[in-house]
C-alpha cells in the first residue's frame, strides 16, 4: 500500500540525514522524498512516499516521531489529500513529431519550456499517476531525459499540518 507521509521538522543541518538514515537502518523503503523550508524558516516540511503494510507504516510513523528534530508527522493517505509532483521531460521533436508532441503536451496541460530544432522540454504538474500517464502516452523512444521531484502532499479542507 502506498503511503504519503508529511513531516514537519526543525530546519537544522543533519535533520534530513537522520530521516534517511532511519529508513535505511530499519529497512523501510523510500519511493520518493522531497523537502524544503516552510513559511516559517525554522521549520522544514518533508513529504515521503513509501510502501508497506499497516504495521510497517505504524512503525515508520512512530520512529519518525521519536527523532528529536521531528515536530509532527501525518500520514496523509489516512484522509483526503492532494498530491502534486513536478516533472520535466526532454523529448526528441524533429519534423512531423513536433506537432504531435505539442498536442500531447496540451492534452496533459503541460507547458513547453525549452525549444531547440530537435527537442522540446515539457513541464508537467500533477499527481504521480498523471505524470506516469504522460510518459506512457508519448513515444517511449522519443524520451531523452526525465527529472521528477517526487510527490508533495497536503491535506484537503480543514486537515492542516502546522506546529
Amino acid at each position, binding site marked *: 500500500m502506498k503511503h504519503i507521509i508529511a513531516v514537519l521538522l526543525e530546519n537544522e*543541518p543533519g535533520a534530513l*540525514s537522520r530521516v534517511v*538514515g532511519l529508513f535505511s537502518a530499519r529497512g523501510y523503503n523510500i519511493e520518493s522524498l522531497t523537502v524544503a523550508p516552510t513559511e516559517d524558516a525554522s521549520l522544514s516540511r518533508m513529504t515521503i512516499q513509501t510502501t508497506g503494510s499497516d504495521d510497517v507504516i*505504524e*512503525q515508520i510513523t*512512530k520512529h519518525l516521531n521519536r527523532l528529536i528534530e521531528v*515536530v509532527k508527522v501525518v500520514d496523509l493517505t489516512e484522509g483526503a489529500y492532494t498530491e502534486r509532483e513536478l516533472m520535466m521531460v526532454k523529448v526528441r521533436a524533429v519534423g512531423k513529431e513536433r506537432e504531435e508532441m505539442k498536442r500531447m503536451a496540451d492534452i496533459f496541460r503541460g507547458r513547453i519550456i525549452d525549444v531547440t530544432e530537435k527537442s522540446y522540454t515539457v513541464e508537467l504538474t500533477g499527481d504521480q499517476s498523471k505524470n506516469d500517464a504522460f510518459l506512457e502516452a508519448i513515444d517511449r523512444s522519443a524520451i531523452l531525459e526525465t527529472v521528477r521531484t517526487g510527490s508533495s502532499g497536503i491535506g484537503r479542507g480543514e486537515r492542516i499540518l502546522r506546529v
Partner: protein
Amino acid sequence: MEISKAEIASAALANSQRSASSVPELRGAEILVKALQAENVKYVWGYPGGAVLHIYDAFYKQDTIQHVLVRHEQAAVHAADGYARATGDVGVALVTSGPGVTNAVTGIATAYMDSIPMVIITGQVPTHAIGLDAFQECDTVGITRPIVKHNFLVKDAKDLAETLKKAFHIARSGRPGPVVVDIPKDVSFKKVPYAGYPATVEMRSYNPVRKGHGGQIRKALQLLLAAKRPYIYTGGGVLLSNASAELRTLVDMLGYPCTNTLMGLGAYPASDRKFLGMLGMHGTVEANNAMQNCDVLLAVGARFDDRVIGNPKHFAQNERKIIHIDIDPSSISKRVKVDIPIVGDVKDVLSEMIAMIRESSTKPDAGALGAWWDTIEGWRKRDCLKYDNSNKDVIKPQYVVETLWNMTKDVETYITSDVGQHQMWAAQYYRFDEPRRWINSGGLGTMGVGIPYAMGIKLAKPESEVFCVTGEGSVQMCIQELSTCLQYNTPIKIVALNNRYLGMVRQWQEVEYEGRYSHSYMDALPNFVKLAEAYGHVGMLIERPEDVEPALREARKLKDRTVFMDFRTDPTENVFPMVQAGKGITEMLLGAEDL
C-alpha cells in the same frame, strides 16, 4: 560647564564597554567545564588527544570534577555507562577525534541498546578543516547517528552552553539514551560572552509523555483484575524509571506472579515466592510456561525482545490479552501486537494504577488465582536450575556464582558481567533483591564491559563490594583497564569462570552444529595470576571445588586490593534451560539428556 560632543560620545562608549565587560568572556573549553559543574557531574572518564587539548587544559584548572584516565576509549564509555546504570545519573565520557571516536563507538552502541543516559563529548578537528581529511578527522556525527539518541556538532562556541543543556536533557528524559556532543578544536578555544548556564531548555520538537492516559489505565485495570491467569512481565524500564518500589507494591497488592527480563533483574525481589525467575532464552520453566499460558499479560518497561518471546508465531498461538506500559511508543506493538497500550513513565503509570486499585472495590478472582498458582507450582517442581555438583574434582561454574551469592546477599553488592555463559549463570544463580545491582550489557551483548563497568561503579560506591563475573575470553577485551583500577584505587573482585572455551559459542556449536567447534577454543591463554600481579593486583588460581569458598572469602578480606580469581571450571557445562533459535518459549531444552 559645557560638555562637548566628544565627551558625551566617549562617556557613552565607556558605558557600553562596561556593560559588555560585565558579562565575562570564557573559552569554549571553560564553558564546557562550567556546564558539567552545573549538571552536577562528578566523574568524567576519558582519554586525551590533539582535538581535546584545550578541554583537558580547562579540566586541569578545576577540581570539582574528577577525571579518570582509562587505557582505551572503549573503556571510558563503558565505565561511564556502568556508573549511569548503578546510580541513575548521566554518565559522561570524553574522547578525542578520529580514532578516539571510533574506539568509543562500541561503548556508545552498548549504551544505546540498553537506553542508558549518557553524554559523550568528542573532540573534532577545527571547523575550517572539517571535510578536508584532516589529521585524526572522522565524521563523528555521521558515524554515531544510528547508535545515539541524538548528536550535535557545535559550530560556534556561543551555542555550546545551550547545546550541552539540551544534550543532558535529551539524555536523561523520556526513554534515556546516549547523546554525543562533537566540539571542534577552535570552538573549544574561542572566547565568547558567557551569561551563565541556561536554567531551562524548551524544545518544541521533543516533549516526552510522562503521564499515562487515564482511560487506558482504567481499561487495563479492569482487564487485569478480571484475569484468571494473570502475569506481570517487567524489564529494564522499571529500573530506568526508578519504579521498583511501585512495582513491588503493585505485585504484592495483587498477589500475581511476576518475572523480570535480563535487564530487569532486581526490580522485584528474587527471594519472593511470587518471582518466577528470569524468562526467555535461558529463563526458567515456570517463567516461560507462565508467559505462554497466561490469559492477561501486563508488560511493564519491557520490549518483547526476541530473546524473550522465542518464535513469534508460537508466541502468538495462545490467546492472551496484553497490556503494555512503556515510555516509548515505538516499542509498543513492534514485535507483538498489544491490546491496551499505555504510553507513559513507568513510575507515574504504576502509581496511578495503585491509587485506582486502592479506590476500587473489585478484587482479583481468588479461586482462579489459586488454581493458577497451583499450576505454576507444578512447573516450579521441575527445579530446572538444579545442577549436578557431585563431582569432587571439577568446579561447576554455577557453584561459584551460588557461593558468591550466599556470601554477599546481605551486603550492598554490585555484580557486573561480561557476555556469554558466565553472564547467564550469573543472572540465574545470583538472586537479585535490589534494583540497579546487576549491571550487564543485554541489548548489544558487548564482551569487554565487565571490568570497566566494575571500575566505574566502584569509584562512585567505594563502600560497596563490586564483583565482575566474567569469562576468560571477555575479560581479555578490556584487560588493560586493570591499570586504571590501580591508578584510581578502585579495588574490584574479578570472578573469572575460566572454561578455556568461548562457552556460549561452544554451546551453540554443540546444539546446532553437531559439535563442530570452529574457533571457539582458546589456546595460549595467559597465566592470569601473573598477569594480575604484573598490573599490581592479587591473582589467585582455583582448581578444586573445596577451594572456591575460601578463595572468595580471602578476596573479600582484601578490601583495598583488586583480586583476579581464575576459577578453572568444567568446560562441558551448558546453560539450561535453553530455547533454541526458532523454537517456542515452552520448547526448552532442560539438560544434557535433551541434546
